[in-house]
């Protein structure tokens, strides 16, 4: 016997579709990649800088589908510009829209300036790109990129869907996942170029740190969510969540990195690339399963009552 009114849900099922987790994933990846690249620029060796510089390209590339995905999910895509009708940071959705809008040109500019600095971009475009104030773009990009990577979990948490809202850690979890996938993307592209093993090791280490952090936060998230996590941990999303997001997305890369830690050359490259692909895929799986399971969670009357108990 239901505690409430028959077995009707207390809250509404979100209307969003696959575009939203895809966008969260790509946006996070972009932010993570940008940050990793920027970290390398500022703290890394010349090899690191060269290797991680591709992160700017990754960030720019990942941002390309973001706006279309976001717009596609709107009920009225023709009114996408209303997202910028007001500036209202209270609304994570509004904040995200402004962030995406400002981060995209910054990331492209930084990528262009990087391309110009490596000689990839020549001619008048290259000259133009060289005008980009690198430091400023980097700073702005890092702040914006981190915001983009970090707001999505908060956005979901800023609802009354038990699976999303119960724990305090969804924002952190998505941030960690974004950074893991972003750094993994940097590792992945670096592995395809001639970079020293040491750089790859360092990148892998950063990625591992993100994955390990993600793992820890996920544990906290699940513990905090209690019964509200059931649609994720049991039921039809349990398999993709445990095997995909957790197994293949976190544990496997950690394991691969551990193995790769003692390897060099081709083996290292293969292992880090495999780990990076797993991390990136896992990041998508995490977003997707939590997103979809959230819809089921919306129908959980008891969890809603739990969430709203004084």
């Amino acid at each position, binding site marked *: 016997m239901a*505690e*409430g*009114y*028959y077995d*009707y*849900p*207390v*809250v*509404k099922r979100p*209307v969003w579709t696959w575009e939203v987790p895809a966008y969260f994933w790509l946006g996070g990846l972009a932010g993570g990649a940008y*940050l990793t690249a920027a*970290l*390398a620029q500022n*703290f*890394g*060796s010349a090899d690191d800088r060269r290797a991680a510089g591709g992160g700017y390209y990754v960030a720019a590339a990942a941002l390309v589908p973001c706006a279309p995905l976001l717009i596609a999910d*709107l*009920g*009225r895509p*023709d*009114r*996408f*510009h*209303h*997202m910028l*009708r007001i500036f*209202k940071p*209270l*609304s994570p*959705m*509004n904040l995200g829209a402004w962030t995406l809008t400002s981060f995209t040109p910054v990331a492209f500019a930084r990528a262009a300036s990087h391309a110009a600095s490596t000689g990839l971009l020549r001619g008048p475009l290259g000259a133009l790109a060289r005008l980009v104030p690198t430091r400023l773009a980097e700073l702005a990009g*890092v702040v914006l990129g*981190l915001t983009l*990577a*970090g*707001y999505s*979990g*908060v*956005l979901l*948490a*800023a*609802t*009354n869907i038990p699976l*999303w*809202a119960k724990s*305090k850690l969804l*924002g952190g979890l*998505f*941030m960690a996942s974004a*950074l893991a996938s972003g750094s993994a993307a940097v590792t992945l592209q670096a592995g395809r170029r001639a970079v020293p093993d*040491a750089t790859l090791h*360092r990148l892998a280490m*950063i990625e591992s*740190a993100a994955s390990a952090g993600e793992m820890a*936060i996920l544990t906290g998230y699940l513990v905090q969510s209690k019964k509200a996590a059931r649609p994720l941990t049991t039921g039809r999303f349990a398999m993709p969540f445990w095997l995909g997001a957790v197994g293949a997305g976190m544990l496997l890369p950690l394991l691969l990195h551990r193995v790769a830690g003692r390897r060099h050359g081709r083996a290292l490259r293969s292992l880090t690339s495999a780990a990076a692909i797993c991390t990136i895929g896992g990041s998508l799986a995490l977003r997707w399963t939590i997103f979809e399971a*959230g819809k089921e969670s919306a129908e959980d009357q008891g969890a809603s009552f739990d*969430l*709203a*108990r*004084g």
Partner: protein
Amino acid sequence: MIDAYKRMMNIEEPPAPKTAKGFFTDTSLCIGCKACEVACKQWNQLPADGFAITGNSYDNTGHLGATTWRHVQFIEQAKANGSGQEQRWLMMSDVCKHCANAACLEACPTGALVRTEYGTVYVQQDICNGCGFCVPACPFGVIDRTPKTGHFEAGTAHKCTLCYDRLKDDMTPACAKSCPTASIQFGDVEELRTRARHRLGELHARGESKARLYGMPEGKEAAEVGPLHAFFLLLDEPQKYNLPEVPRLPRKTMTERYGWSAAVGIGFALVGALVLGRRG
């Protein structure tokens, strides 16, 4: 430039505030006739939601939605072999609560959801772009988005407008006007609250010990979402009517969640800097 932006974004100066209007839904007077549901659909020209029996007493509506802005619940309470006197059939016309702190309004990125001059919460149909964020934000499951392909205002968020159009001409909202037994009362929120307190006293004096108000400033349900401009007199605990004990306002915990997110970001940056800097 600013004017062009305002034109493109459909930005106008809001009207000056007036006295707050709201609903007091007294479920002890509800006869479950559903006139409110139909009057609402008629006035707002909302389509039907489909034709299927639920088996849940006489409620074939189920819940509020994008095209159902009043919903009458039917709660059957009876024991086996109980006498007719112990039997209760509670009826309650549910509606958007028009919260003082409205989660939907706070979530809205476009400013489509606004607080009107009457203190009500209203979705501006020419602004809403159907982002859908208000839908899971509402702690009461009220607001919903219509399908992107549909006959009625496709793809935007909808809920009770408290008949914003009628308020402009000092008309009573359609549901309250139709209600044959004054279970739905419309008026100045302050006055309705006074009336509600008085009514509760009356019912308690009559022995209706389970009667309570839901959505008053002094109620614990107002802790986060604030007092409700559409509030209720219930004859049982709120959960029986699918109303949360303390409806959550997501914003209340948002800073904390941002904090964790930021901490992870900064932590990562530090770790990254450390890892890279060690050799650099």
